[in-house]
């Protein structure tokens, strides 16, 4: 382990105050010995830098999928006092409300075995990759609707079922959205991309529930062994990326205006209640809503495919849950034994609210929130449940995925996209992508093993394993 980092438990590590100058609270992260080998010093430094921000509460946190990010490390979580604290796009990321949702179908593995036409049909139905255009007829009013009411807008426009909304974090939209804080440029990027998947690590995957670890929770969530599911991973597309870019510029100035001393320019921020902080929060919430609407539209397209190929009505393909993993939110947490409202930044981290939290679906109140952790291409994904441990230790947060260990250029040199596709095909996983590079960029071994990342959060008690899902088909951009 890096010099100066202190082990606090088998899986818990502390970065003490003083690791970098100006830290107000310690840093804390979760990691196993196996993941320690691939820990980057830069990521730990970023974790420590976050601890210097005004109004940070308790500690600067990172999940076991920690890696070098923009401003905050990816896997970073930090909560801020609403009066003294700040809000920073560096704590959210470019892809605002990048997130994951899981749909369950009544199909079993035999129904989809060898059905390449299912993946081909999904690839046709969901615009995918660089330059892919929306099939929606979007105008300014539609865009406003998506930004104001998120998944609710999409459902009301016919892209989904009312029951989908209660299975989304925030019921599918944040009320704080302020479309006036979204620039004309961001709108221009948003209009042609509504309902598109994007590229990079975004995907739509057909999976089979292979193992159940917690039968009670799995049953409550609506998952059974052998069941075919559909996972969708995407975010706010160019709209969110532009909102981040625009507000970084504004917040660079407000950092000076409010005399905030930063160890890293990427942590540009403003007091949460300041005009600049409020504008960013409103624009970020609008982008988050756009992302929820986006995943809802893609959900509708996926349901149409199942309906066409397998004659399954939409109602028999329920949404298990939808989680955001790049977002800042105002939430109630217990700090120093007192309940209070705080601003939680999650940057490549997932909300994992435990049993009894008012913000989770009423029928899951005794279980905890479903937490969806996508694997990398060709590797298992996991469903977990939120815990009281997460409420006590991590502001109700857990990991978000596997986390990269190899750069894209290294990945391309190591193995070709064609070879990877062939190797996956031998394992019964069919991949559709616009080009070979899109496959080699996201090859399974460029990521930390997702099973080890979820093992750490499970054993640390900040979420608990419910089910494992193995992929059988992937579309990616």
């Amino acid at each position: 382990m890096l010099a100066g980092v202190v082990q606090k438990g088998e899986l818990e590590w502390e970065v003490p105050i003083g690791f970098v100058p100006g830290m107000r609270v310690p840093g804390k992260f979760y990691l196993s010995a196996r993941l320690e080998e691939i820990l980057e010093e830069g990521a730990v430094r970023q974790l420590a830098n976050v601890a210097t921000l005004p109004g940070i509460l308790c500690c600067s946190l990172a999940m076991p999928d920690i890696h070098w990010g923009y401003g905050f490390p990816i896997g970073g979580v930090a909560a801020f006092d609403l009066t003294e604290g700040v809000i920073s796009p560096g704590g959210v990321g470019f892809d605002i409300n990048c997130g994951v949702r899981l749909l369950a179908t009544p199909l079993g593995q035999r129904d989809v075995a060898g059905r390449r036409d299912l993946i081909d049909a999904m690839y046709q139905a969901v615009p995918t990759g660089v330059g892919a255009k929306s099939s929606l007829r979007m105008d300014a009013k539609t865009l406003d609707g998506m930004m104001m009411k998120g998944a609710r807008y999409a459902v009301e426009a016919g892209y989904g079922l009312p029951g989908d909304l209660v299975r989304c974090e925030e019921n599918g939209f944040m009320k704080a959205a302020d479309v006036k804080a979204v620039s004309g440029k961001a709108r221009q990027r948003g209009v042609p991309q509504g309902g598109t998947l994007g590229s990079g690590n975004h995907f739509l995957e057909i999976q089979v529930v292979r193992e159940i670890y917690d039968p009670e929770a799995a049953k409550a969530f609506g998952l059974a062994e052998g069941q075919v599911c559909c996972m969708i991973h995407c975010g706010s597309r160019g709209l969110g990326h532009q909102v981040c870019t625009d507000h970084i510029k504004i917040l660079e100035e407000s950092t000076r205006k409010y005399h905030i001393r930063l160890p890293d320019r990427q942590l540009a921020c403003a007091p949460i209640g300041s005009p600049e902080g409020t504008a960013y929060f409103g624009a970020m919430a609008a982008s988050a809503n756009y992302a929820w609407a986006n995943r809802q539209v893609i959900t509708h397209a996926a349901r149409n495919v199942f309906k066409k190929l397998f004659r399954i009505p939409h109602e028999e393909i329920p949404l298990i849950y939808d989680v955001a993993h790049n977002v800042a939110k105002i939430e109630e947490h217990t700090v120093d034994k007192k309940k209070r409202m705080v601003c939680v930044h999650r940057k490549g981290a997932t909300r994992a609210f435990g049993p009894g939290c008012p913000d989770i679906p009423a029928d899951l109140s005794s279980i905890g929130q479903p937490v969806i952790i996508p694997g990398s291409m060709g590797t298992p994904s996991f469903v977990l449940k939120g815990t009281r441990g997460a409420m006590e230790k991590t502001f109700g947060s857990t990991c978000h995925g596997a986390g990269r260990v190899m750069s894209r250029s290294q990945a391309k040199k190591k193995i070709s996209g064609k070879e990877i596709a062939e190797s996956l095909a031998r394992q019964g996983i069919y991949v559709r992508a616009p080009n070979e590079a899109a496959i080699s960029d996201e090859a399974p071994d460029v990521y930390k093993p997702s099973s080890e990342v979820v093992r750490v959060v499970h054993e640390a008690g900040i979420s608990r394993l419910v089910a494992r899902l193995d992929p059988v088909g992937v579309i990616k951009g």
Partner: protein
Amino acid sequence: MSFSELPHTADVRIRARSETLEGIFSDLTDALMQVMYGKFTAIRSETLVVKEVRVSGDDTASLLFNYLSEVLFLTEVGGIVFVRADVRVTGNKLHARLFGEVFDPARHSGGTEVKGISYSGLEVRNDANGYIAEIVFDV
């Protein structure tokens, strides 16, 4: 054209080297296009679309950030793949003429979307041989 990719786990880190500051801006435009659209052969020049960019910045780093953010916006919204950038920098202001071809999925699908230009590790310096810039594209 002179740029190379440096190791970066999650994103794409580029180093450009040029005798002039303008050359850095032009090379990084090429780098951005290559990351987004892969390597492709430009079509004949008479059919190119021309776009003008005017930006300012507090320092060279913010000028570069603002310029590349604008290029990213123009390429994504306009569906234009830029093949040449004529850049002029005067103090803290920049004027560029960008020449591009219309996005064609058959020829420009070898890359990955760039979400934004990052201030992370953004550095422009000069030595006896000219200018060096390092920048991260968030992908």
